[in-house]
């Protein structure tokens, strides 16, 4: 690779403090949710209620990562929906395979 001029020819804009603040805020939210999950793992009884809470909190975290970090919310609406809508199928897959797993459990034990 040949680099003759390493000086930038692009106009550097100043930091957008508001945006940066929002990034750190999102990071704190993600951290807080993870800590809450951690506490619940040790204090609550295992069962369908706890699992549902965990999955709901995880999807909530996923929302923050996709919307704030991956900026999916800022994309054009058709792009946004072409990513989000196919994921709805996964909701069905989760429901149906948990049901299937529970049925296998009933037959085995």
């Amino acid at each position: 690779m040949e680099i003759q001029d390493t000086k930038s020819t692009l106009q550097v804009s100043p930091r957008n403090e508001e945006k940066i603040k929002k990034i750190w805020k999102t990071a704190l939210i993600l951290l807080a949710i993870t800590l809450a999950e951690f506490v619940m793992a040790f204090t609550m009884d295992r069962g369908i209620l706890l699992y549902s809470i965990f999955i709901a909190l995880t999807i909530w975290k996923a929302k923050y990562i996709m919307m704030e970090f991956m900026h999916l919310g800022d994309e054009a609406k058709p792009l946004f929906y072409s990513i989000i809508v196919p994921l709805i199928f996964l909701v069905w897959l989760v429901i149906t395979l948990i049901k299937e797993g529970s049925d296998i459990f009933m037959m085995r034990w």
Partner: protein
Amino acid sequence: MSAHSTAIEVSSKRGVWGGGNEPLKASYGKLMMWFFLLSDIFTFAAFLISYLAIRVSYPTYAGAAETFTGSNEYWPVPELVFEALPFLHGVHAPLIFVGLMTFILIASSVTMVLAVEAGHRNDRADVVKWMLWTLLGGITFLSCQAWEWSHFIHGTEGGSLLTYVNGLGQNVTETVFGANLMVNEYGPAAFAQLFFFITGFHGFHVTIGVFLLFLCFYQAAVGVYDKRGHYEMVEKIGLYWHFVDLVWVFVFTLFYLI
């Protein structure tokens, strides 16, 4: 675009079907990255949801933590399996190490998004700085996972007395140490198999991510993106890296919490 500069006049009056539209308003590279990630989401979802299905088909270990021993009869509780720390042999620290790994990966995702923000501003110094932090986070995470795997494979001192069908189809009862794809001291064979496949596949993605991060860091540092006129590559590699973090969030919940 002015009407005089083109042979064919592109007017808004031609409507949606007249051509010249960009309905998704994103570059080719970014679009393809998104659709690749969508397909990758389905791959990981298949793995993780299979884990969930197999997990709920077994009873959970319900006894006291002190007397925990692996068995084919029940699924192990994660905090009793993943409870070791490097350099602190024999210390019972449930989920502390994996919590640390999660923190490192989320932190590297934050520095990545800061690099993307710097890229939007064409600020090379900031891009290089944040890419370096992200790279460091990625390498640290991989090292942690290497330790985690090594510990998982070698197992505990006591092992577990298990009855299982070995590779020759014989029914054997013996003390098992650590884990492999055939048998493991923690629980049913599927537990270790899924552990290796899911965290392995994720680790493989992280490894590729670290290569991409290095490439991006290097190219930003030597001024390739300045010459190119934009920092879109930081954004695309950022998407991939956030995806790796996104998947880990689910792996963490399903493997280490449930």
